[in-house]
């Protein structure tokens, strides 16, 4: 089928977001409270317009010439997502040091042309810098080594 992926993709995103907010506003939020405009009206109005834009772009997608997309770097995408996730999971349990080491390393090997040696050096340097600046200079109250790694 002759479909423009860029129009279709953005149309679907606006449609999904618009519908999610429309449904939520319709289900949970009163349009008026005691005669005055309620918490639902304003967002419902906007979400309906967003939904409309979504529909419009999807229709447009079927009428315009197809366009190619650059391929996704699955390696990069996965490693960056993991880098943030690992930080979120580690910081409170294992502490800032392990969180930074793991997260920086995952980000450092994300580019397809990265090499392990540089990644290790970058990881150590950045971790040291972050701990120096954020923990010692700015005095953020996070444990360098978290409760799960303490021996006592």
């Amino acid at each position, binding site marked *: 089928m002759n479909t423009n992926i860029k*129009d279709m993709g*953005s149309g679907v*995103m606006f449609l999904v977001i618009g519908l999610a907010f429309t449904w939520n506003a319709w289900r949970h939020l009163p349009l008026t*409270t005691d005669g005055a*405009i309620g918490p639902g009206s*304003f967002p419902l109005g*906007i979400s309906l317009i967003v939904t409309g834009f979504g529909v419009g772009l999807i229709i447009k997608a079927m009428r315009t010439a197809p366009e190619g997309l650059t391929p996704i770097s699955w390696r990069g995408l996965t490693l960056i997502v993991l880098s943030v996730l690992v930080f*979120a999971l580690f910081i409170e349990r294992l502490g800032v040091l392990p969180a930074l080491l793991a997260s920086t390393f995952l980000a450092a090997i994300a*580019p397809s042309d990265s090499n392990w040696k540089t990644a290790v050096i970058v990881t150590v340097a950045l971790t040291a810098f972050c701990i120096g600046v954020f923990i010692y200079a*700015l005095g953020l109250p996070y444990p360098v080594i978290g409760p799960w790694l303490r021996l006592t």
Partner: protein
Amino acid sequence: MDILHNLILGFSTALTPENLFYCFAGVLLGTFIGVLPGLGPTATIAMLLPITYYLSPTASLIMLAGIYYGSQYGGSTTAILMNLPGEVSSSVTAIDGYQLARKGKAGTALAIAAIGSFIAGTFATFVIALAAMPLSDIALSFGSAEYFSLILLGIVISTTLAHGSMVRGMAMILTGMLFGLVGTDPDTGMFRFTFGMIELSDGVETVAVALGIFGLSEILRNLEQNASTGAITTAKITSLMPSREDLKKSAGPIMRGSVLGAVMGVLPGGGSILSAFSSYALEKKLSRHPEQFGHGAIEGVAAPESANNAGAQTSFIPMLTLGIPPNALMALMAGALMIQGITPGPNVVYQQPELFWGLIASMWIGNAMLVILNLPLVGLWVSLLKIPYSIMLPAIVVFSTLGVYTVNNSGFDLYTLLFFGLAGYLFRRFDCEVAPFLIGFVLSGLLETHFRRALSFSSGNLDTFITHPISAGILAVAALVILLVAMPSVRKTREVAFADSED
């Protein structure tokens, strides 16, 4: 004579060794955290709030103010060099500043940004000194109908900013507005769009949204291409200082940016962000070669950088004279005053003249310090460009992650960062600019509040927006802007202007 007397009082207060020291500490820290993406002035000021208890009220306000406008200088540095706005207000600077850096004119862009900021800062200092009272009287006379129309105008103007399709720009603003409404409804206390997540009851964290949709998505986009050819590493520096031609081109935008920024800064919800976006749109409209905007027009750096600095400073006016903080950051400033037992409001000028005028004088001194701090050090910032992308990428990821975490010490904010990083990545893949999203996100709460308030005064009658003359006038301008952009001839020009903007 009164003003002269007040300024003398201000400078004699600001020039005491103690206040000079805290002014310097503030602008230095401000530049630093401005360069660090993620750790914004709001988070820094929030962290420093408990410390200010041990300072004098004047010293603490001088320092906190220095962090705010100092971060406007620093924020532009990362925006220009890495396309990673250190602050939200620098995201417009990134559009052309980064293109200039790619063309090897990073030094020029940085210098123009610093010069523009200084001129705007000086101008804004005098604006506050001369017009604090009259301006706040005007702002005071504005009702909700006028505010609603004004915010709407800002939104309309910023849609003309969006690259490519206007439909996409409009849809992105509205989508941003929807996410901006997530949280507790201020009127009824109901949870809206929290989708069962209690962490969302205070709304979506702005820093996480901004860093996700700008920072993380950009990294994912860069990873699509071969990372070693990443744009950041290829930029070459040929000249550090702006040429006579660049200075000449920037003079007008700096002047107009200063004025527009100073006006926008006073308005609630305006501040540095709206200032930067509006002045960029204005310059693009005035320019004889609008097609250069988005491809490294020096005017696109000069105008928003001047405007955001002017706006940052004049946003003190409503907080200090009316007691109404126009943005989250000013709410923290008001908090700093209250810690000291001073209620922000009209009485500050009369009961604390040293504080009021000392703060104003310190802004000018601080701006002078910032130029000395930034211009000779432009070379140092430029040297950041020599760092290969394989180092920059993990640094950006880690600073963003750690930065987002420091705002609320919340792991949930990191999931927010990821969500908006991925959403921003998809939007970019489908040719949707992400800047309008953030505008909508930031402005929607205020827009809705004034919409509802105006309607409750008029008992639900929508006429209220056109029966108020000022509101009607602003709406007419907004309608005119829409008409102009929708006109076939303008539309064609616009399409040509954006035609080769896609990479």
